[in-house]
């Protein structure tokens, strides 16, 4: 570096001369030593092995890996639940939320699957954004939820509504139409997928327009008359839909329902008066739904609604560590004070962390090849999306 010579053109009398060579080298040597020291100090923290199998997390820090951007719904959920959960873990470990965003959540989740420590000190947060690409087997996905262990899950629900002025008064107006209704969506390969499958199951033909920025803008577009059909999740329903139903602008049609412990669709406690998608099917067709479309609907309902958000640890994490963390989550979930405080964040659905959760989640996260085939086929034939 010492033979960097300045070009004479830029040198003018006012400029300082070069420092003495020996002094410069001495200074650089000192800083080189400091730099090496700094590089090594940084590595110290990796050396200590955490002890998480004794039921006590004293002195540990649990990193909660959020693969999406700060400020979104998943981020808010993870920070809130994670904070409360770590307070309930014996030894009160530090709580370190990390947003590793990129590639719609795929990059961070890939990284977790590849390199997360298998001792309970790093926890992954999942949501529909990262689950649907896994269901569709996108080539970018290098993780597999079947090889992770769930700690805690929390669901949400949703309901479909329509613009009255488009000539919709009830579910019967959805079928046998001269002109298809316009459905506003974000992307066919995201949370919208469940709604698209529901439409296909019911035989509702829609003109789907994707590209909206979020569900909020779709709701506004419906109020402007740009789209006719929309759905909103439970947490957004009161602010986005309630008032326009009251003034007659919109009409509620059906809720997605919830999966019960047996994997059957039941009414959503947050939409007790609205029929679920299978109930609407019975109304329209006179028989109970069966076949690949219904199986696909139930699978997606579980993945994207009933168990939408979850926290996971790698498969080989010691059972004791899993148990300690899960027990803390269960304790938090039972606490009435937390329930009251968390009502809005959790969207009115319980925080599930019982020991049977793993089985329920495993069932929900088992996707049959026939279901996958049906979904890929639907996307290809009706929405012109080719995957794989």
């Amino acid at each position, binding site marked *: 570096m010492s033979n960097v010579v300045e*070009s004479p053109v830029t040198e003018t009398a006012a400029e300082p001369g070069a420092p003495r060579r020996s002094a410069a080298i001495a200074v650089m040597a000192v800083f080189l030593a400091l730099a090496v020291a*700094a590089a090594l100090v940084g590595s110290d923290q990796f050396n200590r092995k955490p002890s998480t199998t004794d039921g006590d997390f004293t002195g540990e820090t649990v990193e909660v890996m959020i693969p999406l951007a700060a400020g979104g719904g998943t981020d808010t959920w993870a920070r809130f639940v994670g904070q409360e959960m770590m307070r309930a873990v014996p030894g009160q470990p530090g709580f370190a939320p990390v947003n*590793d965003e990129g590639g719609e959540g795929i990059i961070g989740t890939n990284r977790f699957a590849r390199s997360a420590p298998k001792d309970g000190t790093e926890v992954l947060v999942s949501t529909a954004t990262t689950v649907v690409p896994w269901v569709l087997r996108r080539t970018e996905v290098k993780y597999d939820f079947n090889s992770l262990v769930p700690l805690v899950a929390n669901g949400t629900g949703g309901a479909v509504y329509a613009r009255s002025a488009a000539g919709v008064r009830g579910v019967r107006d959805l079928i046998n139409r001269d002109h298809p209704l316009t459905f506003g969506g974000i*992307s066919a390969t995201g949370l919208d997928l469940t709604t698209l499958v529901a439409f296909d199951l019911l035989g509702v033909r829609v003109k789907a327009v994707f590209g909206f920025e979020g569900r909020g803008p779709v709701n506004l577009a419906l109020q402007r008359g740009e789209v006719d059909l929309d759905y909103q999740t439970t947490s957004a329903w009161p602010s986005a839909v309630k008032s326009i139903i009251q003034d007659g602008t919109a009409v509620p049609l059906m809720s997605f329902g919830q999966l019960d412990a047996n994997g059957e669709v039941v009414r959503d406690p947050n939409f007790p008066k609205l029929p679920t998608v299978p109930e609407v099917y019975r109304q329209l067709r006179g028989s109970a739904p069966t076949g690949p479309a219904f199986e696909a609907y139930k699978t997606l309902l579980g993945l994207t609604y009933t168990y939408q958000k979850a926290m996971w640890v790698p498969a080989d994490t010691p059972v004791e560590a899993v148990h300690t963390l899960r027990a803390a989550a269960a304790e938090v979930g039972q606490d009435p004070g937390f329930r009251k405080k968390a009502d*809005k964040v959790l969207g009115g659905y319980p925080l599930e962390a019982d020991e049977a959760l793993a089985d329920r989640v495993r069932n929900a996260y088992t996707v049959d090849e026939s279901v996958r085939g049906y979904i890929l086929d639907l996307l290809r034939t009706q929405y012109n999306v080719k995957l794989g």
Partner: protein
Amino acid sequence: MGEAALSALASLTDPSLLVMLLVGVVAGLVIGLIPGLGGTGAVAVLMPLTFGMDAPQALALLIGALAVVHTSDTVAAVLLGAPGSASASVTMLDGYAMAKKGQAGRALTLAFLSSMAGGLLGAVGLTLAIPLARPLVLSFGSPELFMLTVLGVALAAVLSRGNVAKGLTAGLLGLLLGMVGTSPTTAEYRFTFGSLFLGDGLSLVAVALGVFGLAEIASRVGQRGKPEQIVKVGGGWLDGVREWLSHWTHVLRGALIGIWAGVLPGIGATAGTWLAYGQAVATAKDKKEFGKGDPRGIVGPESANNSVEAGDLIPTLLFGIPGGVPAAMLMGMLLTYGVQPGPSIVTDHLDLLYLIVWSFAIASVLGALLCFLSTRGLARISLVPFAVLGPGLVVVMLLGAFQEGGQLGDLWVMLALGVFGWLLKSTGFPRAPFLIGFVLAVPLERYYFLTDTLNDGFGWLLRPWVLVFLAVLLAPAVLRLVRAVRARRNLDHDDEDRQPPAEEEGELADSTWSLFTAFGALAVFAIGFLTAGSFSAEARLVPRLICTLGLLVGAYLVWRELRRRTRRPARQPAEEVPKLAPDVKVAARTFAWMATFLLLVTLGGYVAALLLFVPAFLLYVARARIRVVVVYTLVTAALVAVLPLLLPVHLPTGILPSF
């Protein structure tokens, strides 16, 4: 309503609320000074503190910070030419020009006072806009939003210094760069060349700080001695206030545009600041000082970019649609307090709503006052030779860019964009339209697509707001044409005198480099056009449109460059190359230094790398004294090492330590 407003004001006399507000303001100002952290950083650092607080305290804290972040981010834009956000790049046009003339203090004074007024007017606007917001938002469908994005890019292209063809080329290149990543309409990856890292698109901070910040360092680092011009740091506060008052109409207009634009979710902030600049230029009788340090170019936009923040709160609170990440985080916090954003907030939580409004107003005044008082100190930065500032700035800017995605790849992208930005600057392409194009690319495509699919035919072009925007869009072009024709007629034989001085057009304008850049742009558009062939029909539409426009404008540029070259030698024989070579050399060497720094970061981590990079740069490039080198390096290293403890800052780690 009035009662709730007064009781909210009364509750702000509660000392604990005021303290929170003050803490928020100070935190917001400090974080705003670091280019790249911005409102997101401010909310992220304060959010953990709010757990366990009551809703009013927590709100005062966060609003205090949000209200002033855009007051202090002006500092880096004006003094160093490094805007940390798209809206600060507008203030930079005239602010940085003024600072380079040695009037940094004047520029900052005008900016801070305008920020204050913008914030205050924004708060008033927020109050008045509550009943009007709903009809306004509902009257803006996809066609109107699409026109607004077009207007934003077009205004930037037309109004930036330099000529329109170059501005358009830069804007179109920015739009194309903004399309790297996931397509907003079909969720397929575009221009990522198989890299998942590019799947989310490039980070705004990396683009802004690369194209402006690093490029600025590269072109000015040759300056080793004190700045030649006599720098007037102070100039008296009263004088500043007096000058500012003489532009009060611009302050008012800027604020109104800001509130109006802020209400529109997603695109308001960027487009609004440009509209404010655009109207200032359009309504001025004497336009030739714009871009060279015209006070009106600072006052309007700066007032707008603070009132935009207030306007931005309207969609967040009333519709639950946040306009940006900071607003989204604020919304998340409200949810944890059981406050549901939505139309019902006006009836259910009117007191909180007014608390937000008043906090915003008070914070704006406090923030601007604190900045205003420190103007003299801040302006002294411009007394330090750029070569000495350089290494510290490189360290801070790269660290800022690392925060958004936490990827080292972002830093390499930023360096590449630094080279690109330097090329643009040197060859006389305005860089602001490039940045604006980049920011507005996704909304532009989204709303074009929605407009096209939700409306049959082109009937939407006749909607009233669309017509208004079309008029605004075409008026300057028509005026320019008329004026150009008239000027050609009057000044036909004077043509040579009207050539702008070399410094303004860029040092390398009309050189081989300029031709090279024009050819490069042409090639990029051609490649973009061809690559788009592999996308689905929906995802191909807008990139192809942009590339086609780009090919046309690029071809015109190349033709003009070639024509000039064939004409030029007769008048000025081969004078350019030897004179310009040193600048190119200095820049190339500076970029090599930065690349070496990044390599060191990759190897040994951030602190270790800066411990080598900073002293070496100071010794061999800046030729600073030994004492300065040692103290400077130690202070920088200590600050960077401590920063992660105080702020939500992550330092890149190297690969060596993990062996």
